């Protein structure tokens, strides 16, 4: 998909408030990821990172109660998840869902077709095989049920196979690095970078510096207690690595117990 120069191809989240089952989880998140850039999203457990990803992708459980989500100057509120995918968004799940009975190859075929990117059978299979090879996954995974009895790392790799096949314009990667061995981490990072090199924007949620050595962030955001408390350059990663979140939380007027208490609701 190409867009005219006048359209700002960026993901813009403004003052976003989200509730699950009536419980407030995000309370005013703001951040902007221009297409082509890599932003990292960090923050303690329960900060709301995953919830932000779900809200951006339109998970029906995560109800937007305030603020805005915009992509390419268009509001996403009320837009179906499948349409968000067609508009070029992608969310790699922290815990990818298994669908017993649905083979990986059928799932991918349906996804491509659903996005209007269907290919003739031979080209499709060739594409999937190539990307599986690139992600060092055995081709036998194609006929396995998607994510069903995959190991943790295999699920994460399969998410990136999908990313590579679907080629979105903006990807949110939710802890794609967790559960990967050192070699797989590199393989996955290279897979992401190949699509990034073609202009895909990335919002990468992680707890660790290591993946950011491969996928280099232009900006770093730190979330706590349902909002972004600091945004800055790559040096933030080093600070977190060195001192943890405590100093930032305190600067933001939160202490750990308060932050976790807020997160725990």
């Amino acid at each position, binding site marked *: 998909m190409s867009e005219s120069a006048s359209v700002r191809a960026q993901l813009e989240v403004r003052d976003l408030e989200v509730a699950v089952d009536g419980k407030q989880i995000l309370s005013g998140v703001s951040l902007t990821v221009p297409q082509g850039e890599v932003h990292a999203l960090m923050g303690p457990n329960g900060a709301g990172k995953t919830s932000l990803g779900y809200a951006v992708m*339109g998970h029906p*459980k995560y109800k937007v109660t305030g603020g805005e989500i915009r992509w390419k100057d268009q509001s996403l509120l009320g837009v179906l998840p*499948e349409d968000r995918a067609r508009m070029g968004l992608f969310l790699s799940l922290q815990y990818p869902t298994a*669908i017993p009975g649905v083979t990986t190859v059928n*799932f991918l075929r349906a996804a491509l077709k659903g*996005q209007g990117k269907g290919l003739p059978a031979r080209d499709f299979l060739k594409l999937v095989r190539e990307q599986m090879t690139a992600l060092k996954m055995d081709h036998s995974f194609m006929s396995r049920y998607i994510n069903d009895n995959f190991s943790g790392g295999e699920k994460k790799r399969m998410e990136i196979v999908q990313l590579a096949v679907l080629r979105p314009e903006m990807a949110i990667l939710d802890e794609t690095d967790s559960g990967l061995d050192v070699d797989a981490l590199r393989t996955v990072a290279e897979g992401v970078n190949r699509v990034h090199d073609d202009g895909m924007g990335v919002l990468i949620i992680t707890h660790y510096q290591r993946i950011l050595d491969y996928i280099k962030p232009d900006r770093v955001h730190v979330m706590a207690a349902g909002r972004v408390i600091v945004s800055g350059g790559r040096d933030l990663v080093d600070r977190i690595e060195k001192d943890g979140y405590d100093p930032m939380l305190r600067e933001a007027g939160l202490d750990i117990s308060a932050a976790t208490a807020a997160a725990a609701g």
Partner: protein
Amino acid sequence: MSGEFAKADGRQPLGATEQVLTETAASSRLTREEATTVALPGGDPSWLASLRQAALAAYREAPWPSSTRDEDWRRTPQIDKLDPANFAEPEALGAGELPPYLREALDGPVSGGEVSAVVISDERGNLESPSPANSAPASPIALGLAAGLAADGAVWQSVAGKVAPPGLRKLISLNTVRTLGGACVHVAKGQEPKGYVRLLHGVSHGSASFPRTLIKLEEGASLTLVEEWVSPDADPALLAPVVEVELARGAHLTHVVFQRCGDQTVLQSTVRALVGQEARYDVRWNLLGAAWQKSYFEVLMLGDGSDTRLVGLCVGRQKQHYDVQTLQDHVAQGAVSDLLYRVAVADRSRSVYAGLIRVEEGAQKTNAYVQNRNLLLSPLAKSDSNPTLEILANDVRCTHGSTAGRIDDNQLFYCESRGIAREQARRLIVEGFFADVVDSFPEGSLRESGRGFVLEALEELARSGALAASSRTA
């Protein structure tokens, strides 16, 4: 629909005004209490005539099943309104003719693959296949009921009414009294006929048909059999097949049932098998379409080391009602029976399942499993599931389980977030729900037929809006 079917309850003066069309149907009478026996074209062999008399006595003696009195019928009160008197006598048909719905079925989704024999029946008895493309050479393996009994009476005398004795249930008695056609399938010792045998049992609108199928595989014989139960969408009709299976030592039968009945057809079936020593019985039932039905699938594990796999699927929509009851009766030692039944119900349809594993005294080293999984596609669809164990031996492995649930929201979101629209996502997930059933079909054209059947069911669900219906929770 079942609602409209109930209208047929007011008796129609059928016998009185209808012209008498066949000799066998002459002065025929059938009520819930009383019946006249019929005879096969060319006459019954004397042993069959006696069997019919015994069945008639049993029919008269047994009360009509009742949803209040009989445990089997507790959740299927439709039986209280069923009256065999409400169905018309068969209409005459020109020689070599086939009713359109049967011709359609014959050329339908199961065709393909190598067919070694085709046998067709409806309420008139056995019919000739007029389509040369589908008519296999006359085969001694599978014949119509009358032809089969004439060819080898001694063989069938030991099967008919022995596997499914008349007194067992009122509807078995009824089938025995009234059957005019069906099939005799016999494979001699050690034989493994190539391709598969195809049986097509139908009923025309307004009629009642009682096909009887007798299957006997001698020692070490092996066969694949595809049986179809079909009827057109029209007036109420009753299709009540009884299938008796006897497998001798080391025999192997793969028996696939495809049901595609009209929306006003009542189906009452019994498939009952005696499984001999080290014999293997693979039965697959696939139910799609009927107003309501009660179907029994029963295996008696009589031989040590026998092995039975029972795998079923059912797709319900609108106000359809499917009642399936199974029995895995372990008499011999070291036998295995493994049952999986998957059901998807949409709209206001309902599934009722009862499955009993009985391990008789002395049936040690039994492995028996029963599993029923229900997928509810609408808030008004319902499933009742009651798998039970009755174990009288002490060295056995038995498990039973059942589940009922809706399509998982996270699975839906996962699909949707990758660009798969909701209806397509639901279709994909429902298809996936049946994947292990399809995978249990023998590889090749039969598995393709199984896959095709599931796709056909999905089409029907999609047409009736059952895949799109569920409202978005957002």
